[in-house]
Each structure stands twice: as C-alpha cells, then as structure tokens.
C-alpha cells in the first residue's frame, strides 16, 4: 500500500524561543495509506488544527519530518505539495473565493496554470461528482452551508488531489448539511478511492473513519479503530470528548442492570443486541 502522508516525531511550538513553553504539537508520529479514512479527534486546543497547518505547509515543524507522497515537505516543494492536497475548512463562507460556483471551483486550477479547455472539463466533472452541477452560475449567498461545503470539495477535487483534508468542515452546518457533506465524502471515497483526513469533534463523523487518532494537549494519546478508541470510555469523557449516542445508551442500560455485552458504536448494533440479548439464556 502506498503511503500518502506520514509524520515522524513532529513537534511544533508557536513560541519556540520561550523555554519550557507548551508545544502545540508534541512528538507526533502517524501515517496514512492510500484509500484510508483517518479521523483526528480531540477537544479544543489539543493541537489538531496546528497539525493540519503543518500538513499543508502553512507552518513548519521545529522537529521531525513530514512526508507527503513520500517526499519530505520543505519550502521548495511547498506548491507542488499543496496542489496534491485538497482542503475544506470550517467556515463555508470564508473559503469561497469566486463570484459564482464555477469560478470558485476553477480557482485552484487557475492558480496552477491549467489551460482553459482542460479547466472547463474538470470544473464540470468535479461539480458532477458532488452533485452540484445544476448550480454552475449560482452566487454563494444563494447556497446553503452544506451546498457551499460541497462546492469547496469540488474545488479541491478539480485538482485531482491524493488527499482530502476536512478541517472541521461540518461543524458549522445544520444536521442536514452535515449529512450531505459526509455522504458526498463517503461516495467519493468509494468511487475514486480518495484518501481522507478529517479533523473533527463530532463523534458520529469520527465513526465513519477506518482509524481514529486521539489527540490531547498536543500529544497523540491513542490511535486505533473506532471500536478501540471508544472502548476507552471514561478516558475520552475526561478529555472533553463525547461518546457516541449508542455507547452512552449502552452504559446507561448496563447501569440499570440490563444484560448487554460489549460496546456499541451505532444505534443499529445496539438495537440488534437488545432484541437478541435474551436468546442465549
């Protein structure tokens, strides 16, 4: 499997001159392979946003190295690296550069000097991929938050990125918009094998990932499948993270004396377990 991104003992501090100051990212290592969906969770100030800034070269680490597509990220290959990473930020309004949907999708293409004919084709294709192809000439203020985020995804897709980073992209959306965006990302991943790195504190979103990286105070606290991470239970709550609804429900039922085995991530698992729990007696 191809490695898309890796962090090797990366450390970063916003105030490197001050001795013993807390590091925003402290000795973090992990790697992402092609086609994987990784979620980074953690409460505010856990260093997850700094992590993203390091990936796209907005900040450079003081220690350790970051490799994107197996090349070490330096100031020299910054722009090539950025063109192979697509990013969707938190606020749907503040990342919409173009005057209309199609202009915005074309923005990254224009920046990278893609010829006009090629551009038209790519803009239409990527808008089709996020099902926004009927909105070509719409202006941003006539779109919903979810639609704007889908346009942002299309803008990233137009560059045919290897890696799509969602930096709390769903946190400002209503439940419907969130559903739209997550559905779009899931479809893309299934259809074109896009690698996804999502930064989130929404547990339901984290559950969609193959692996979860749990950050706390700049350090990687735990890494594993959603099952493994949410099995930590109280530890997560201690660090200010909520458990999935089904897990909380299981805990409550267990404390009421209902016989349930193990952890449940989704409502479906819980329901299945509930109605079969008395069969084996």
């Amino acid at each position: 499997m191809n490695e898309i991104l890796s962090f090797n003992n990366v450390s970063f501090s916003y105030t490197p001159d001050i001795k013993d100051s807390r590091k925003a990212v402290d000795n973090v290592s992990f790697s992402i392979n092609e086609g994987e969906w990784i979620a980074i969770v953690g409460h505010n100030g856990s260093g997850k946003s700094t992590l993203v800034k390091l990936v796209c070269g907005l900040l450079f680490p003081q220690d350790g190295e970051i490799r994107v597509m197996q090349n070490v990220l330096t100031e020299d290959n910054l722009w090539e690296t950025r063109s192979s990473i697509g990013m969707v930020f938190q606020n749907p309004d503040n990342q919409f550069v173009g005057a209309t949907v199609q202009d915005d999708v074309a923005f990254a293409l224009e920046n990278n000097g893609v010829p006009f004919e090629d551009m038209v084709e790519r803009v239409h294709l990527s808008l089709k991929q996020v099902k926004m192809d009927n909105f070509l000439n719409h202006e941003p203020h006539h779109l919903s938050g979810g639609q704007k985020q889908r346009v942002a995804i299309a803008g990233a897709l137009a560059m045919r990125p290897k890696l799509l980073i969602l930096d709390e992209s769903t946190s400002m959306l209503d439940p419907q918009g969130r559903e739209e965006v997550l559905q779009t990302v899931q479809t893309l991943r299934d259809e074109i094998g896009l690698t996804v790195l999502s930064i989130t504190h929404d547990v339901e979103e984290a559950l969609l990932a193959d692996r979860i990286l749990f950050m706390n105070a700049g350090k990687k606290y735990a890494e594993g499948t959603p099952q493994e991470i949410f099995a930590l239970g109280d530890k997560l709550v201690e660090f200010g993270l909520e458990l999935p609804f089904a897990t909380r429900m299981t805990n409550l039922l267990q404390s009421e004396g209902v016989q349930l085995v193990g952890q449940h991530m989704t409502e479906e698992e819980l329901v299945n377990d509930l109605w079969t729990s008395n069969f084996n007696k």
Partner: protein
Amino acid sequence: MMEKMIFGRYIPGNSYVHTLDPRSKLVFVFAFIIIVFLANNAVTYALLLAFTLLVVLLSRIRLYFLINGLKPVILLLVFTFIIHILFTREGDVILDLGFLKIYEEGLKQGIFISIRFLVLVFMTSILTLTTSPISITDGIEVLLNPLKKVKLPVHELALMMSIALRFIPTLMDETDKIMKAQMARGSDLSAGPMKDRIKAVVPLLVPLFVSAFKRAEDLATAMEVRGYRGGEGRTRYRQLKWDWKDSLCLATLVLFAVLLFIYRS
C-alpha cells in the same frame, strides 16, 4: 428603498446590450462621455437623446423602470435646470413676470445641460444594469493590462475588486444578524435623537469589523492552500470573447461621433 435603487445593480437578461463583451461596453461608455461634449446646438442634442433612447431600447430595460430608479438624479436635474433659467441673462426675454424675467439663452442652456446630464446618467446606468459586476471587473482588468508595464498591479486590483463584490452580500447578512442581536439586547437603532442613533451604530460596527478581519484571514489561508501565488503563471477561467457585435457597437459610436461633428455649429 433598496429595491428601487438601481445604481450598481445588475439585471440579468439576454438582449443585444447584455451579450456584448464588457470591454466593448466599457470603451463605448468612456468614449461616449467624451463625445457628449461635442454637442452644442439643438440638432446635436436631439441626436444625443435619440441615440441614448436607442441604446435603452436595445438593452430591453423598461424606460419607466430606469426613470423610476433614477428619481434622485432627476430631482438634481430639475434643480440645475431651474438654476440655469433663473441666472442666465442673455438673449431675448421670452417671459416677463415682472419680478422674474426668463431669457431665451437661459432656457436653451437649461435644456442642453439637462439633456447632457440625462444621457450620461442613462448610459452609465445601462452599463451597470446590463453587465454583471464580475464581468466589469474582468473587462477593466484586460483593458488595464498594458499598465502592467508601468508596474501597476492590475491583476491584484481586479482580484481585490471581485472579492469585495463577492463579500458584499455576506457582510450585509452579517450586519443584519448583528443588528438583530443588538436589538434583542435592547439597543434601539431607529428612534431617538440623531446623537443617540449614531452612538447606537458603534456596537454594530465593531463586531462587524472584527468578523471581517477574521474572514479576511481565513480567506487568505484558503487561497494560499489552494495554490494562489499572485498573477504570475495564472490562467483564466472567464474568457472574454470579442464578437462582430462588439465591433459593430464601436463602429456605430464612431459613426455617431462623425454625425455630431458634422451637425455641430
């Protein structure tokens, strides 16, 4: 009130004027502004008026709508007309009311100046009404391109303008939201003496500024991540196409200028 204002508003359509290239429209309007000053007698001013009406007709924007939207300008026009009538004292007296004498030259000047003013306002309004702000920006960028040689940052200026335009509705929404939030906290923006009302605007502007700066920062990050590094080596998604229609439009203007030249005294 905002509904009726037509300054800087764009009305989508597909008339002859709408489909023209923004470059030709811009050149047309600027040339027209100069040409207007060629007119100096009744025939030429009549020609000017007729030509302007023809353009309005071609843009398929209803004259009533145009006049209604330009009401404040027309008030100003009437005012200048009256001033001219009252204060120009040349030629024969055509009306003597005892306390007030109206001279021939005054009436003539008043009418001429009014027509000149009217056609200028009409033409520029037609430009903004039939061209989307973003097309105007594109047009200006291309037309100013030669100035790159003298180190004028043409691309940056155009981008700044288009981003400013793009954020107008966003900031309007924001203002509305902040206004409601302050009203919910008991601030009264619409009543009281002028001094109080101006004071009430401060808690509205401060949060707006703060959020605008935050937006600017976010936008800059997003642009950088999407590979923006100035106009160098950049391609354009919006292509401008010069058509025979555009050549026709400019040719007509030249013809018109010649006509004015012949008939002016």
